[in-house]
């Protein structure tokens, strides 16, 4: 099952413009958290716009399954709305009912801590607050494909962390997240795949943080059937007693647990524990301090 596939995609602006992207191929599974890297002007934003359906490809084929949400790099405050009103509108445009759109708008305003400015016109808000609205607009859609074009720029530290978490949650819930950011450590260790754009071509590279020894968590689950895919691509070990042991990077254990807890199939989490030492250690027998599920 593929969430997104680009085949030999090329893009240039205008009939005689230079090729910004050439022969780009990309296939992503649901749950992928993908970093697109590259120098300024290497076509990162163009690639995101193609995936978002904002720009059509000049060549090649592009197939994206499901709903899409996009966060532009700079969000203009020249809109005659207040954050709450704008988010409600965008929620409905994303296909939500009026009630759900209003609920989620409120939720994200609260999560970014700008509930007190929900009624202030966008034109009177600071750049960072506007950016929060732009991010919230995309997150409230709970879209299948989330595109973040340097969405972290201009956000304060707390909001950056919130966006990090939200991106992981989205990937954890089965969405595809494509992001561009100039901080090389953005979501390091959590990124499932990374790509580099150079001279219009896209090549896969090692995701940042992958080479470091990862801290692993083990999750013991009693389940007849596990969800089709799991965040963090955990290592899976079927025990003879019918339980399944999953080993996953510590940073993604929250997303994994969230996925397990919200899975439609009936399953029970028996144990969550930290594995000492790098790669594939033996699971620690003593129970964990407190499972990080109660959020």
């Amino acid at each position, binding site marked *: 099952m593929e969430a997104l596939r680009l085949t030999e995609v090329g893009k240039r602006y205008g009939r005689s413009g230079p090729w910004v992207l050439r022969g780009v191929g990309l296939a992503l599974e649901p749950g992928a958290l993908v970093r697109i890297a590259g120098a300024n002007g290497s076509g990162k934003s163009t690639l995101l716009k193609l995936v*978002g359906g904002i720009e*059509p490809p000049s060549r090649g084929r592009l197939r994206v399954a499901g709903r899409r949400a996009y966060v532009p790099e700079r969000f203009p405050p020249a809109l*005659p709305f207040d954050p709450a009103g704008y988010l409600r509108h965008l929620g409905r445009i994303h*296909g939500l009912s009026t009630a759900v759109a209003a609920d989620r708008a409120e939720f994200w305003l609260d999560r970014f801590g700008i509930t007190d400015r929900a009624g202030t016109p966008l034109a009177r808000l600071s750049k960072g607050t506007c950016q929060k609205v732009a991010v919230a607009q995309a997150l409230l859609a709970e879209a299948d494909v989330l595109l973040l074009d340097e969405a972290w720029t201009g956000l304060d530290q707390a909001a950056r962390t919130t966006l990090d978490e939200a991106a992981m949650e989205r990937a954890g819930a089965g969405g595809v997240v494509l992001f561009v950011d100039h901080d090389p450590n953005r979501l390091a260790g959590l990124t499932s795949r990374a790509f580099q754009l150079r001279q219009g071509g896209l090549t896969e590279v090692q995701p940042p943080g992958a080479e470091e020894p990862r801290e692993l968590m083990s999750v013991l689950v009693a389940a007849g059937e596990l969800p089709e895919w799991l965040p963090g691509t955990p290592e899976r070990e079927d025990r003879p007693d019918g339980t399944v042991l999953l080993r996953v990077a510590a940073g993604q254990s929250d997303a994994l647990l969230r996925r397990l807890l919200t899975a439609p199939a009936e399953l029970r989490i028996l144990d969550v524990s930290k594995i000492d030492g790098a790669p594939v250690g033996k699971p620690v027998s003593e129970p964990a301090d407190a499972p990080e599920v109660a959020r």
Partner: protein
Amino acid sequence: MSALIRYQVELLLRSQRWLPPFLGYLLVLGLGVSGDQPMMDCLGYAAALLVPITAWYVRCTLTADPPQARACRVAAAGPARVQLASLAAALIAGLVLAVVAVAAIWLVCGRTTIIPGREVSWARAALAGLLAAVCCVLVGLAVGALSHRPVLLRGSYGILAALGLSVLVLVVPFSPANVAVRALVSGSLRAEVRYPLAAPAVAALLALLTAAGTAALSRRRTE
């Protein structure tokens, strides 16, 4: 789709961009309409003016939000629907103006035809005027859609193209706008009310085709 149209209409109202075309229309209408003018001629004048005014509204709704905000909507709903919603909002604005103009002329004018002493039914004249106005709004919608994104990408040429096309559709014989306006003016000369129903039908078809064409084009056109 209705969510997009609501957004566009609210954006048009809140950004006050509805105001310049509205005031412009009122001003030019005020120059030609007065109590001693025959109602049917005034209705023809009001309808003809709606062609460039509706094209202006199309320009307003197509350029209503900044490119980045538009990109968010396009990602959510697709370029074709965003284009159609812009046109729908302009259509609504044009139709509101048509109703307002017909009502105002009905109230202001003291007689119906240009021939002294020969009157026609006020209601029938108003209905013919409304028909012509709707017809011109639909033609204006097509004119506006053809002079802006995604057909003409350079905004600065859009105004010239819209004005040129507006004049063209009003003077070319057999154009629905021309037929509708002429029916009113000649009806006034002969003191009879005619309903040239083919004109609004052709205008509606024209508007539909333009909307569908530009929506299809918006999927393939780089901005």
